[in-house]
């Protein structure tokens, strides 16, 4: 079976994600070059259905038992008790601890804010995995322990498509948008809803934000 994750030097396949290669296409479309993607997850809409998790798995083909996005399931001891689902993934932090942690400079932030890992430079030291306060990074044993994580489906974004998890979200809990030019529901959420982030005390400035389900502590970002 053909793997979606081809790599230089593996089986003679040289597939390089040429990120700068799309300039021409975008000029054709005449679209903004300043997009700064971000995600808001409204837990009042999340049904815990796992569609995003499997869609991500199908799209990104992560290592077995590893996920670029997953759901944290917690029981809240209210009356009556209830389950709370929190979809989590790389937060594409504005101040990402993984970036300075990498001795090789293999992980860095693109101009659009997405944090990527260059597998051409990754030496599998694992420092970035330890640095991430969210457990969003993991080593891929199939590729020499190089480090994988969510990249907001960068290739799909370049093609003008939403991330796979956002497409799969049937209740609209995952709201994706452009911070540089917020529109529609994304803009409405930015302006009018109380948004929170995971582990605000880490001061990482995440670009994945949340609306908490029902009551619960929230903080303004």
């Amino acid at each position, binding site marked *: 079976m053909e793997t979606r994750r081809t790599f230089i030097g593996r089986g003679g396949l040289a597939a390089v994600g040429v*990120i700068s*290669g799309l300039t021409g296409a975008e000029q054709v479309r005449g679209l903004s070059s300043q997009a700064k993607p971000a995600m808001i997850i409204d837990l009042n809409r999340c049904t815990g259905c796992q569609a995003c998790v499997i869609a991500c798995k199908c799209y990104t083909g992560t290592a077995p038992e590893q996920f670029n996005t997953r759901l944290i399931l917690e029981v809240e001891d209210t009356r009556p008790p209830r389950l709370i*689902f929190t979809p989590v993934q790389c937060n594409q932090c504005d101040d990402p601890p993984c970036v300075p942690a990498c001795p090789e400079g293999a992980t860095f932030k693109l101009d659009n804010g997405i944090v*990527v890992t*260059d597998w051409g430079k990754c030496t599998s030291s694992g420092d970035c995995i330890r640095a991430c306060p969210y457990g969003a990074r993991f080593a891929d044993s199939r590729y020499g322990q190089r480090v994988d994580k969510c990249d907001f489906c960068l290739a799909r*974004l370049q093609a003008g498509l939403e991330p796979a998890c956002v497409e799969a979200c*049937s209740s609209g809990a995952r709201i994706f*948008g452009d911070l540089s030019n917020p529109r529609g529901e994304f803009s409405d959420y930015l302006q009018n809803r109380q948004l929170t982030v995971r582990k605000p005390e880490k001061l990482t400035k995440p670009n994945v934000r949340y609306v908490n389900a029902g009551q619960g502590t929230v903080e303004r970002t």
Partner: protein
Amino acid sequence: MMMKKSGKENQFSPIRRTLLKGSALLAGTALIAPVKVKADSQQIQDPRTMQPTAGLQTDSDVQVVHSVCLGCNARCGNRSVVKEGKLEKYSGNPYHPYNHQGHPIDYATPVMETLSLSSPVCAKAQDAPNYIYNPYRILQPLKRAGKRGSGQFEPIGWEQMIAEITDGGRIFAHLGEKRVVEGLQQQNSDAPIDSNALELGPKRNGFVFITGRLQSGRKEFIDRFVKGAMGSINRIGHTDICGLGFRMGNFALTEKKQVELKADPWGSEYILVFGANIYEALQPGVNTYGAAVAARHSSGKVKFVIVDPRLQNASVHAEDWLAVKPGQDGALAMGMIRRMIEQELYNTKYLRAPHPGAAADLGHGCYTNATHLVIDDQEHPDNRKFLRISDLETKSTNTNKQDHHVVLAADGSPVAFDTVDEALLDRETVITADSGRTIRVKTAFRMMKEGVMEHSLAEYAEISGIPCSQLKRTADDFCSYGTRAAVCQYHGAGNYTNGTYAAYAVAMLSCLVGSVEVRGGYLTAGGGMAPPGKGLYDLQDFPGRLRGKGVRISREKACYEKSSEFCRKKAETGNGYPAKRPWFSFTKGGLSVESLSGIDEQYPYPCKVLFTYFYNPVYSTPGGYRYRQTLEDRDKVPLHVSIDTSINESNLYADYIVPDVTYAEGHYGWLNPHAPALRFTGIRTPCIEPLTRKTADGRPYCLETFLIDLAEKMNLPGFGDNAISDTAGNGHSLHRAEDFYLRGFANIAHGAGVPSASEQEVAFVERNYPVAGFKKILSADEWRQTCYILARGGVFTSYEDVFDGENFKYGLERLALYNEDLALARNALTGDFFSGTLTCLAPADSAGNILAEKDQEYPFTVISHKMNVHSQSRTTSHRWSMEIFPENFIVMNKKDADSLGLRDGENARLVSRSNAGGIVGKIKTGNLIRRECVAVSFHYGHSQLGASGLPIRQAEKVFLGGRQVVDKNGLKPNPKLATGLNPNRISRLDEHLADTPMVDLTAGIPDFSSTRVKIVKDSKA
């Protein structure tokens, strides 16, 4: 695929942001422009390459098909992306309401403009490539090569198999079986199956065809073979194990007209969820019903309360939880109804409207028989029936009114129901007929009320396990939303013995507030857009067509009192009871469990040839382990042919296994909506070529090819040359699946009156759809019109299209507070009448023993449920889902676990009266389940589908995975597919009925909620 350099990119379809202004779909998506990375960015090695997508389908090696999913029976739309012939991914279909919370894009939108639109679909569909390419799929026919159940099979040639199944004979002589097996041909006879009981029908009925996961399309095809060509009445569905309980409640309420009604998730303000797993299962599924409720909940438009012994995923947004005792949903509903009666919270004006016009004047879509008079008079020959004009005017010759029900006008005088706009509701009286005879009568409402008043509120609270205060509060709250409140009941409500009455009471709640068939209320489905069986081609009738006659082996919809057995016993003993096994005159049917029990007891006649399709009763039926004995027995099942994609716990006992395709390769079909509300016909069509091997003339091994070849071999009517006629009377051959289904699609397109597809859309279909290879079956004009629905995956309307103001346009006319047919049906084991209205009955065995009392020494009750990433029995192949949830658990309340000294993660054994050996699983404790209950999900605890090694000859040629799953001994066991436990393996059997699985005596409902167990620490842990 790597990202391609410019040149190709210019052909990419950009997102069409301007396309669909104002549509709900667009509002939620496409909010970001394509991302650009600064031109001077360094090139990096990306961990992954770009998966093909529909939006980029102009790539020459990518195909896109809009079709219908079968990850589960919710049947959402899907869009496949196929690259170089291989299915890469499914997403949703933007035309399909099920993928968009009821609000899809405009149906007229040209298909090329939709391909970049996002469209969601659930986790099961996202995992489907692992199901389609499951290495444990079988590719060629197998014949048993050892004892039944030994797992010894060997490949057999297609034509040899067809000949053996047709002709029978000493086909297992090489295994030392001397018996002569009757083939299908021997069943093709009009001789009576039992010359002492002609009512049982012809010998043809010895051919029994039980269907598991059947869908419209294949249903008509199988019926054509079983009923039309072979003339057997025994094509039996599996509605019983699917969820007959709640359906029977609706069946009683609607006088057999409908079985599925649900709260309108788009319009209701309050939903009382009875045993419906709205965020994890249901039909419509999680990405329709659950998503719509969650989205509306988030903006405060709807609130909902869960009635379930287990607090499900929907607890995240639920207002309250009523942790009802298993099997006591009816007691809770009746307690609520008592509260409604005592506080007069029901919709009095509505219930007093005695006919459709009167209800319509009040703004309701349907009326009730609440005011209609019922004869409650032992002396009267029509006792238990409705009082009719003919009972009062015995001398009248006015024939058109004779059958009319009678109501009491405001002054108390008896009049025909349609002559007054308001009638007395809560009365009983004595009426004198023109003959001078007096008749004691009660209104249907009074009959129901008497049933409800049999217990006090405190008793209902005690029986249901819900505190009185919570019961009252829920009733009061439910009644405070006018007609914008409804129940949503599903498998949990009523899937147990005596469940008919539980579900009837639950359904009655919506009826009493007047919300049935009203926007925001309790709605049926809107139906399909056009009949697939007629129009351009007649797919229903054909020369020589037979119709099944006699009594089904399940005894469903048959009246015991008309049987020879009854007459004989009555002549011998003066009382015709008991029957050997129950009969079910009042049921929706689809009684697979009673079919197998009938086969086991050879009652009312023996089965000679059993075909099973996509059906795994040993795994999926509560107590199905009992049927291993049945299927092993060569006298009870002389010939067993299974049609399936893989080897499961049941066809392990088959004589032949015919390989079938999956829904990516076949399963053509036309799929109408589930309740509630929507109106559409989805079209299921393949996206890849069949993976099974092919016949000499190039047709894939699958259900259709198999039945066609059997029929042609036996010269049966309805198949082969000139089997299908068009409107001009010309005959067309039925030699392959497409001959049938493509004509069905043409009928639908024609009947729905869709336009012809544009040239661009015809080109889209011809470029992408495997079925286009058969377009010559249709005329050029028919093909163009059919392309319109193929391109869109069906014919669709939107939620708003099904209402006329507040009224549902496709609704029922009448609801029954008292059901005459039910009141006249009898328990075939005792001769007792069933109640015609609500009554509070606890789950009991066939001898009437209340199980909660009889099995007291087993202190825990087992309940079961589905998970959002699985369908019932066939999804262990969902590799990614299995990474998230590699096993299931015995879920129990922490306080119970503490008292037994059990801790999270420890192994424990569940032991029931019927399975002393029990089953072992890991304990998971918490506060999301009622005390004295344990919950075990389905899906796990398999011993087949790859879980066990099997000594299959030439196995590397048999299985799709080839050497990956095979070694020198045959199929290799895969322990990852054997994890967890299956709750059905400890279900209670009925010792009064040959130790077969327990069923409800009214309707044949299997019992999913009454098995009681002891929990013992597993010493091996």
